[in-house]
């Protein structure tokens, strides 16, 4: 069946359409458990925003400042509409301030209550002023909160939705919390005003007074300091009264006034490594004095505290290894202070106490890391403990725990490997902590594996015996894997390319090439020609000879060169065989070659000088050949015999 051009066109169209559908269908296979973040829709949630607002206000009411601080810290990551961003930030900062102010007000209310019980009216009065100021600021912050909630309400159009909807419920919760805060602030105002009234009633008592002095303005920790003063009330000295000496507001010592109202005591400066300690004396009316005298607190005197400080600098090894010792290098720098002979230090690893030791000013402390220490950065903390006049000192340093990576140095590796054959591989394993000994070295080449163990100096050696394969030649990977025995060393692998020549395969391949390229074509050619001859009937096609000069010369040249020569078993072949012998004789004698555009007759004529009288014999033979070549004349046995005779004669004459 023969197909037309239209049918072929249809096939091309079908193929094209199929391809288009295949291509268009491919993206459908994309998975959908992820979403492209760059094209994702932006969606804001009013419900969650109001829930956050309500939660924050609940924290204010619960006086939980830490929760609010956490909310403020993460606020930049909240997904809120741009129009609400400023009010959102205002809301959180106002809530933070309000919480802190409420805590302050709480403390003020309880402090004033305590001061009133101790008849400390002057202090109470100043505390009230501060509390009222803070209350006013708190009310301002609550206004900001109300405003921020209103802005968010407008943005999410809360007023237009049903009261049962999630957003409306969340917004109502915010408004309820705002109302509760409003009530709370009102309550504080009422309490403070009531306490203020109580003060004004009590402030008519006689005021008492107490003085204080110390014998030195500065002292080292542990030194002894004397403190003294006078207690009086309305110009009258009060004797045999109990006086409390306060250091930084805390009771440290108790003394009594003598009969003349003087008091004197001494105390050891505590080992507080601070720059100043404030000292005050306090008279607190007791028993019969409660309704007669006011409380007296002396002015504060400062005692400068002296002690020796040091700066501790630490250093660790660049890398540490689990299960191995490492060192912490430290240096106490005391500046102008006397250098301590030895200090007690505590070393902790990731805040867990690890080592205790007594060290000089410059020290190197060895620590043994447990074998299961995780790889990564660890925190080493060294604490120099306080010792008399020496203040404590703490310093941290990072310790990087890693595994040592051995380096594989191959000292002997062949450039090329012949198969079959063998070669030697030698190398050395070194890591940052020295040679890697007793490591198992596995060498893989061409599917064959050889094992070796590294020596104490890290060297190893192995002989690879190459096994036969199907390849010819090319680059083959030689892989060396070293597995160290120690837990702090890591596995290492390296690969090299080795030119591999399969000698036997190459030889076989070469023989195949020779067979396919030279012998087979020849054999096949003969067989094909023979088969063709058998198949084709011996028909003679007679065509008009082309007698143009170029055609004539071309046929002549072909004849001489033997191109397209006929089988010598045929009469024509036999005749031409003898003629070619003659032409070769002429070529040898004359030294002339048949030119591309030259006829046989022209050639015989040109070589006439060399052939002499034999030229006639050759010309005679040429005429027979021309007759065969350029006319329908069929070669006869007489022609062949004649040609053979003429050829032999020409050979005899030309002496060959």
């Amino acid at each position, binding site marked *: *069946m*023969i*197909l037309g051009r239209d*049918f*072929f066109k249809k*096939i*091309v169209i*079908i*193929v094209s359409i199929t*391809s288009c559908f*295949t*291509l268009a269908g*491919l993206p459908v*296979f*994309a*998975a959908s*458990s*992820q*979403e*492209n*973040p*760059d094209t*994702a*829709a932006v*969606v804001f*949630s009013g*419900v*969650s925003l109001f*829930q*956050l607002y309500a939660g924050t206000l609940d924290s204010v009411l619960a006086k939980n400042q830490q929760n609010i601080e956490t909310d403020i*810290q*993460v606020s930049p*990551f*909240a*997904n*809120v509409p741009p129009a609400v961003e400023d009010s959102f930030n205002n809301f959180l900062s106002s809530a933070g301030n309000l919480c802190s102010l409420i805590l302050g007000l709480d403390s003020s209310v309880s402090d004033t209550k305590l001061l009133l019980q101790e008849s400390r009216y002057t202090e109470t009065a100043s505390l009230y002023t501060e509390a009222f100021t803070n209350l006013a600021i708190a009310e301002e912050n609550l206004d900001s909160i109300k405003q921020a909630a209103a802005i968010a309400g407008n943005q999410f159009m809360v007023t237009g939705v049903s009261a049962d909807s999630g957003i409306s419920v969340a917004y109502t919760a915010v408004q309820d919390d705002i109302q509760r805060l409003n009530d709370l602030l009102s309550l504080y105002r009422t309490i403070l005003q009531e306490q203020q009234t109580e003060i004004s009633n009590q402030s008519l008592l006689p005021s008492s007074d107490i003085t204080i002095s110390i014998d030195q303005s500065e002292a080292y920790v542990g030194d002894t300091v004397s403190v003294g003063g006078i207690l009086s009330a309305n110009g009258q000295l009060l004797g045999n009264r109990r006086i409390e000496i306060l250091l930084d507001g805390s009771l440290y010592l108790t003394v009594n006034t003598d009969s003349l109202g003087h008091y004197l005591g001494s105390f050891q400066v505590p080992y507080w490594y601070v720059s100043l300690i404030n000292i005050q004396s306090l008279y607190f009316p007791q028993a019969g004095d409660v309704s007669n005298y006011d409380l007296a607190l002396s002015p504060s005197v400062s005692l400068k505290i002296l002690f020796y400080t040091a700066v501790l600098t630490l250093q660790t090894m660049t890398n540490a290894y689990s299960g191995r010792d490492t060192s912490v290098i430290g240096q106490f720098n005391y500046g102008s202070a006397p250098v301590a002979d030895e200090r007690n230090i505590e070393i902790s690893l990731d805040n867990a106490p690890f080592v205790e030791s007594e060290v000089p000013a410059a020290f190197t402390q060895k620590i043994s890391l447990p074998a*299961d220490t*995780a*790889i*990564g*950065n660890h925190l080493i903390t060294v604490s120099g403990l306080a010792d008399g006049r020496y203040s404590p000192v703490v310093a941290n340093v990072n310790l*990087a725990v*890693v*595994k040592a*990576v051995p380096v594989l140095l191959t000292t002997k590796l062949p450039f090329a490997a012949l198969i079959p054959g063998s070669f030697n591989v030698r190398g050395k394993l070194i890591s940052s902590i020295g040679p890697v000994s007793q490591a198992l070295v596995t060498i893989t080449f061409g599917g064959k594996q050889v094992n070796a163990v590294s020596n104490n100096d890290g060297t190893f050696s192995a002989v690879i015996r190459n096994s036969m*394969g*199907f*390849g*010819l*030649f090319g680059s083959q990977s030689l892989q060396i894997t070293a597995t160290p025995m120690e837990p702090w060393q*890591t*596995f290492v*692998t390296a690969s090299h390319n080795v030119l591999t020549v399969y000698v036997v*395969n190459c030889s076989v391949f070469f023989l*195949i090439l020779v067979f*396919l*390229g030279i012998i087979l*074509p020849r054999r*096949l050619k003969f067989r*094909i020609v023979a088969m063709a001859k058998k198949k084709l009937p011996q028909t003679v096609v007679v065509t008009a000879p082309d007698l143009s000069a170029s055609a004539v010369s071309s046929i002549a040249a072909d004849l001489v060169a033997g191109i397209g020569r006929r089988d010598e078993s045929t009469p024509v072949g036999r005749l031409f065989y003898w003629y070619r012998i003659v032409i070769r004789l002429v070529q040898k004698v004359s030294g002339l070659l048949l030119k591309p555009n030259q006829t046989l007759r022209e050639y015989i004529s040109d070589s006439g000088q060399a052939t002499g009288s034999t030229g006639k014999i050759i010309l005679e033979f040429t005429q027979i050949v021309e007759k065969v070549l350029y006319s329908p004349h069929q070669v006869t046995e007489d022609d062949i015999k004649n040609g053979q005779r003429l050829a032999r004669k020409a050979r005899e004459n030309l002496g060959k």
Partner: protein
Amino acid sequence: MKIHHALIITILITFIISLICVSLFPSVQAFMQYNTLWNGLHHSLNVLNANTVDTSNGLPQIDSNNVLVCIPYLQYSDNELAQLKDFVNSGGTLMVMDDFGYGNDILTYLGIDCRFSGTPLLDPLYCYKNQSFPEIMDFSHSVSRNVKEVVLNHATALLNIDNSLVIARSSASSYLDRNGSGSWDEGELKGPLPVAAKMRLGTGIIILVSDPSILLNSMLVKDDNLLFIKNLTGSDINSGEILVDTSHLIRDPMEITKTKLLAIKGILSQPCALLGIVSLLFIFVSIYILKMGGSIGRES
């Protein structure tokens, strides 16, 4: 032209066009190594200096410094699970990143009580663009270095895990949307919920992350995702590398064909195959030359 010739030519053309299309068409399947689009791993693997590993024919020898990342979207066989267990027991670090896949099979086999919830974790307030992209801002000390926030993409949460093992948590406004309503309903777990955990198992380490999407080309560059992964795997400290197991990912037919084509290309580049191809070419050329006979080079 006869009909059987036309059919052979048509089949050949279709086959060649298909091969060219498969070779040239970009990979679009999620988590694929050669996918350069938003949902691929191509750029991420380069940035993390990570490699892929095929465990379908067994787990190759992996140095304990390296981190093996499993994204179990296809089930692991018992044999594969046993190999993972051996890897961890020999001191290796295994990072299981899963959301809605077969991560729980691995955890069950390893004897870990923790589970991937398999329910979408949504955060309507602390999110990137919408609640399906929860932002994580609460990290433990071990992974918090230079990390302030991490964005997840259609993630889930970890359940039944000890607090001391948790290394990252979602915000208080997040929740597990069990009924798929897209909003929090009574009975649904509210945040903070664990999204990453780290624990020791034998001498090895197991890291759990409830969203593998942070490894995608488009996600790794978001916020501090890259630093988080580096801190998780310790890749900036360790000399080891990250190896992503790609043999348990869902592959579409084109991806399978692409992989097979690459495998065939690999086989054909072997000396034996090369020898065969050269011989075949030689034989065909010889036959052609012989068929043409003396007509080659001669004027007709």
